[in-house]
């Protein structure tokens, strides 16, 4: 079985695969998709251009979700002491209830609302007469029951249409309570083209309503924020474990296992470390503009990548003791990693993977597959933008279309009293000269081999075709894609919520991931597809002759 797969693999030509993917579409759809399917080739110092962050064609079975899913599901979902109240009919709230595997740890007496699902459950009378009164009443009831520090209100599709002014309702309630910050998100699902718009709407409001609310100095010598880490399967816990060991203080994680106070204090950190570039790079920019905190791109997916990211952070602070501790931690953690990887590699080396997830994950997880000797033969994002593929240098040239235009861009200026550059210009220059890159991200494409396929907003039809033609040993996407791929006899790993298990970040996470992929690609189950009597009768005849 395994050897057969390998033989098939070398036969494909990317141009043929691309042509095959497009062949069944109506011409208009084919033209559009052609621009979102890119054969990776090294042009002079640059990557070829891909179309991304554009509308999904109606009727094409997409992997994407909506703006609300990006806002409430991804960004605000993992916060634990903020009451998340969804204003709309019941479904939107129900589906976002505990389905993303964000872990939280509230401690013995802490607040933790993550297990609750709250909704105004709009009825037809609310649609006809407006739902503002019901929303105000629901906020009041949530306040009376839970007395939370903060209540976040989320709009779903019909709310925008009927014109409920959720922001005014939130503002009035905030004033009324005095001790509870209430704010709202206009994250109706029809805005934007994917979850990505929702990330932006969420982060804007967090920045506008929470960040900077608490000026109290937090203890710690090396203070950072970790942006774009959502604690799926406990990833954030593992990263925090490593930070602790190194003596790095994580002021705020955006937003895994986060608290209101973490967001409120984020402006007191001295460095922003950006994990998921897609969902949060603009927050890093805003924190820099307003408070003077520089940002670097990090990646804690992959043991090598983790080590590299820690070194970057240490280099930024430039403290000898920190640099030494980081090296000591890496030296301490790596032997266990090496031991597992050298065992697993015996079985995974040379195998192939495909990844279609997120706006950064398809890139991050490539590291882990590399470490296992597995080659990524095709990858893409569900809701990435061009800069996530090609690097941030394309940002000035991004087309702003109608869908992007209605996602608010906050205009940020330096805070009058609290803007404080963390490094002098000279220090920044020196760090840059030494190789530390600020505000820098090269994207996925430069890391992909030549002649691999990079595909944006992959859909069900293309996924099935790709697997059929290129026969990867493992395919990674989300829950909706999982079982159609597995029906083809190819193991599928969810990289949004990980199916089960985790963490996969950091050193321990890397070990978990190696073992998990080893289990998946080498599971005996893939050899049971055919019953003995269904196997080719000629083969058994040949066997008799031998």
């Amino acid at each position, binding site marked *: 079985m395994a050897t057969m797969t390998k033989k098939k693999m070398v036969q494909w030509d990317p141009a043929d695969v691309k042509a095959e993917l497009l062949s*069944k*579409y*109506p011409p208009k759809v084919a033209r559009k998709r052609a621009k979102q399917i890119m054969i990776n080739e090294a042009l002079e110092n640059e990557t070829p251009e891909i179309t991304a962050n554009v*509308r*999904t*064609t*109606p*009727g*094409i*079975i*997409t992997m*994407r*979700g*909506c703006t*609300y*899913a990006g806002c409430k599901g991804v960004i605000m979902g993992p916060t634990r002491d903020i009451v998340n109240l969804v204003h*709309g*009919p*019941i*479904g*939107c*709230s*129900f*589906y976002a209830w*505990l*389905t993303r595997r964000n872990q939280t740890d509230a401690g013995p007496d802490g*607040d*933790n*609302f993550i297990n*609750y*699902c*709250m909704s*105004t*459950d709009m*009825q*037809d009378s609310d*649609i006809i007469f407006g739902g503002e009164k019901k*929303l105000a*009443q629901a906020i009041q*009831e949530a306040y009376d*029951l839970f007395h939370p520090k903060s209540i976040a209100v989320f709009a779903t*599709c*019909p709310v925008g*249409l009927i014109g409920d002014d959720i922001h005014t309702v939130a503002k009035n309630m905030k004033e009324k309570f005095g001790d509870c910050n209430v704010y709202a998100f206009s994250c*109706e*699902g*029809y805005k*934007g*083209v994917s979850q990505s718009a929702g990330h932006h709407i969420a982060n804007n409001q967090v920045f506008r309503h929470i960040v900077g609310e608490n000026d109290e100095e937090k203890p710690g010598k090396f203070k950072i924020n970790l942006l774009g880490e959502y604690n799926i399967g406990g990833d954030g816990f593992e990263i925090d474990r490593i930070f602790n060991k190194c003596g790095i203080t994580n002021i705020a994680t955006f937003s895994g296992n986060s608290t209101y106070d973490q967001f409120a204090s984020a402006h007191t950190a001295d460095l922003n470390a950006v994990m998921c570039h897609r969902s949060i790079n603009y927050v890093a920019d805003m924190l820099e503009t307003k408070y003077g905190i520089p940002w670097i791109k990090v990646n804690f997916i992959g043991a090598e990548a983790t080590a590299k990211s820690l070194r970057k952070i240490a280099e930024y602070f430039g403290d000898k003791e920190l640099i030494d501790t980081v090296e000591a931690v890496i030296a301490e953690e790596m032997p266990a990693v090496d031991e597992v990887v050298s065992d697993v590699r015996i079985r995974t080396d040379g195998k192939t993977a495909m990844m279609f997830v997120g706006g950064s994950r398809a890139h991050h997880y490539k590291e882990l597959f590399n470490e296992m000797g597995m080659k990524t033969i095709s990858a893409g994002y569900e809701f990435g933008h061009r800069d996530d593929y090609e690097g941030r240098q394309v940002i000035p040239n991004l087309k702003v279309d*109608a*869908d992007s235009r209605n996602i608010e861009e906050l205009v940020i200026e330096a805070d009058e009293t609290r803007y404080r550059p963390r490094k002098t210009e000279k220090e920044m220059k020196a760090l840059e000269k030494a190789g530390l890159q600020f505000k820098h991200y090269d994207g996925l494409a430069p890391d992909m081999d030549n002649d691999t396929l990079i595909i944006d907003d992959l859909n069900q*039809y293309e996924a099935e075709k790709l697997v059929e033609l290129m026969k990867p040993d493992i395919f990674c996407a989300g829950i*909706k894609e999982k*079982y*159609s*791929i597995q*029906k*083809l*006899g190819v193991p599928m790993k969810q990289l949004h919520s990980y199916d089960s298990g985790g963490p996969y970040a950091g050193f321990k996470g890397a070990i978990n991931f190696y073992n998990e992929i080893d289990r998946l690609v080498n599971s005996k189950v893939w050899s049971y*597809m055919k019953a003995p009597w269904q196997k080719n009768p000629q083969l058994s005849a040949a066997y008799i002759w031998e």
Partner: protein
Amino acid sequence: MLLRHTPKEIPTERKALTINPAKTCQPIGAMYAALGIHGCLPHSHGSQGCCAYHRSALTRHYKEPISAATSSFTEGASVFGGQANLLQAINNIFTVYEPDVIAVHTTCLSETIGDDLKQIRLKAQNEGKIPEGKYVIGAPTPSYVGSHVTGFSNMVKSMTEFAETTGKKNGKVNIIPGWVEPADMEEIKRMAKLTGVKTILFPDTSGVLNAPLTGEYKMFPDGGTTVAELKSAGDSVGTLALGEWCSADAARELDKKNKVPCNVLDMPFGLKATDRFVDALRKIAGVTVSDELALERGQLVDLISDMHQYFYHKKVALVGDPDQLISMTEFLVSIDMCPVHIITGTPGKKFEKRIREITKDMPFEVNVKAKGDMFLLHQWMKNDPVDLLIGNSYCKYMARDEDVPLVRWGFPILDRQGHQYFPTVGYKGGLRLLEKILEALLDRKDRDDPEEKFELVL
């Protein structure tokens, strides 16, 4: 504590805030129903998030691929209406995925905008976007009315569009099974076959959502009610609709439109409801019940008597959908268990009335609420503790906090398997339900009994 903020006190009734819902929205029911038509691709007319959520929820419940398309509304469509999106979608779907049927349901968004499905379908027809021999059906499913159950019912009702009256009866009985699992649909067919009744079951998700792993992916698996069967449903001798909430509307529509008389029954969960189902089946087809079914019934009665001491006066909390809960409550009462807290999120005053009737002779007071939520159920449990909780996977948070054994039954089940393979309807299903209940109660007894009371034989 997982639900650490849930207080025991219930000072005032909440008027606007739903916490931990015991229902979800219409389209997911419509999507599930549509998957029970052979060769059908469900289509969600709205923005793509709803479709993604419904597919994900069904996928997690069945661990099977759920294909469904969406009109992918953006802001423009929300302002100008989604007609262009749907027309384009229909064309793309028939070209790329080649289903026999597209079953369109609406969402809150397209309903609020006021898109007229009928008119859009007509336009698609006139523009030649629906190939010869292919069909587009549609059901309005605004989620601000009813619940997922309503959506299921609406889609099943729209299937009756296919029904034709040729004037020549086909000698079959239509069975509308309601929102039950694929294994239950299979079991209903088996029971009918044992009784010697020819049936048209719709929808039928068996063979669709419990498909085998063979190395081949069929976007449209072998199961499902065929279009030919749906057409023929207009010539059947009668319809048995299982469940007032899930199935009655479709049955009444067939009665009205095609003059197929109908009988609305409770879903055949438990002894008595199954008895009524089998009896109705026998009468409508004019046959005698087979010895095999009678044997199965006897086995169920036998198990009830064998283990009655463990059921007797045990208090149960129940949450789920109306049709299922009515039959389950009746079953529990019939074995002398005491369902004391019963909640559905689906509206319907009739529900509370039925439950009160069924439980009227019980020695304990009963809390029942339609349009309730799990937060309230949890509060009831804190005030009047129970021995057993029956409901979907979300119940495990309450079960753990209150240290109450849980039997998973309902939708969605996200953390256990078996519901797509083993039925809970009929006599056989009754055996399985009792097995699950006993397992939960006796595992708990074995865990909690002091050593000197720990016993080998139970």
